[in-house]
């Protein structure tokens, strides 16, 4: 699907939210839900940043690190990929205090979701690096580049393009997982919706708005990733047309 279509969907979703908020049975819920959406967005953005950092570090450690670092990265990936995000949230929020480490709910949410998605992301990064043809390594070796120079200048820029679509998937996964954070006392979008629904029973307006708000956020992510992809593959794509 092209970027214009995505933008049109985004604009349409925003327009529907705008139109609905002029109607009384909807407008009542908009401010509260927007507050929740802001929190959801904060957790999603910060969590995604953490996920990228962890994903890249873990992948590089597993591919090129010395043995102890390699093990550490493998342990991290397997634990955070192999247990559910919910359990991780509970652990960081309810279990760690038993060992004397107490964190606020917001940092725990960012940490748990970022680490969780970062573990998946490390496999994305690893796969993308390994998908760069061997000839690129060999040419860099023949030009006497060091390992870090090869990675930074030759391999990662090419791997980057292959990473963008799967990272887009992960960011959207992460956005949706933010619904879990209500279980550690945070009032995110999903939590506020449920709360409002319990007190007012206006199910249709509340969950219509919630659906649209999530859709706006995920469309925004998709559009940003598509733009990034287009930009990153500029040179390569231009050639393909020739």
């Amino acid at each position, binding site marked *: 699907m092209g970027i214009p279509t995505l933008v049109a969907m985004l604009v349409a979703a925003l327009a529907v939210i705008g139109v609905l908020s002029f109607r009384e049975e909807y407008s009542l819920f908009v401010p509260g839900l927007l507050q929740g959406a802001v929190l959801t967005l904060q957790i999603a953005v910060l969590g995604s940043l953490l996920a990228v950092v962890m994903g890249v570090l873990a992948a590089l450690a597993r591919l090129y690190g010395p043995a102890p670092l390699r093990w550490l990265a493998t342990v991290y990936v397997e634990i955070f990929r192999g247990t559910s995000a919910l359990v991780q949230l509970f652990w960081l929020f309810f279990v760690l205090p038993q060992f004397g480490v107490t964190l606020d709910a917001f940092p725990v949410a960012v940490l748990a979701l970022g680490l969780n998605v970062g573990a998946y992301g490390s496999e994305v990064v690893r796969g993308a690096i390994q998908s760069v043809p061997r000839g*690129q390594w060999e040419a860099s070796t023949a030009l006497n580049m060091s390992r870090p120079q090869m990675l930074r200048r030759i391999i990662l820029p090419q791997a980057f393009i292959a990473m963008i679509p799967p990272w887009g998937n992960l960011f959207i996964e992460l956005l949706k997982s933010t619904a879990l954070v209500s279980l550690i006392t945070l009032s995110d979008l999903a939590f506020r919706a449920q709360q409002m629904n319990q007190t007012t029973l206006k199910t249709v307006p509340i969950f219509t708005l919630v659906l649209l708000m999530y859709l706006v956020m995920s469309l925004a992510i998709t559009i940003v990733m598509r733009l990034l992809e287009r930009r990153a593959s500029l*040179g390569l794509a231009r050639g393909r047309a020739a």
Partner: protein
Amino acid sequence: MTDQPMVRFDNVSKRYGPLTVLDGLNLDIMRGEKVSVIGPSGSGKTTVLRMLMTLEKINDGVIWVEGEPLTHMERNGKLVPADLAHVRRVRGKIGMVFQSFNLFPHMTAMQNCIEAPVTVLGMKRAEAEARAAELLGMVGLSQKKDHYPSQLSGGQQQRVAIARALAMRPKIMLFDEVTSALDPELVGEVLQVIRQIGREHDLTMLMVTHQMGFAREFSDRVCFFYQGKICEQGPPAELFGAPKNERTRQFLNAVLEAG
């Protein structure tokens, strides 16, 4: 010093598991010498180049470059396997051109040619660009310097790859079947460039090739590889004109029939 070989393979072996690809290779290449390596596929000829470029580890023996060990280094009077710093220092004298070009697809022809001079040699960008422009001109691609590899024909890509390798000012150039991936009508332009740098540069050149005509006309010496060993070597006129070895005769007959 002048009679010291530029490259010396000293009893070098390469094995992949039970398969011996090269078996105790001894080969000296003199400064400025142009050596062609021919032979059937699987005879180990490409492995020779790849070992010299340090793309393959060797299992036995020592490779020397300008009297200095490449695969090893001296420690307390003994040769021990080289560390990366040592390899990189010696490897800098060698450049290589590949069958599949291996240009960096995310960089233009110009960027391909200045990347390593800037990042590896620490050359100033302007200086590297001037040098690259000169080399791209020499390979006849001044007009294409801002093109990406995928906008270039195979022959043009290979000429950029040659310029890119030369930009590092190697003393030894390795050519690994550099025309094998090209459409027949593009082979000539690449061979022309190789001929030219053979004339203009004081380079030692080692090439694996299937272009018998070119090997005959261009090289000072031709080595025929068979089953991991040099089966026969000599000046091209002798090796092609009057091969002594039965295997060489068979191979040349087969190639000439096909070609």
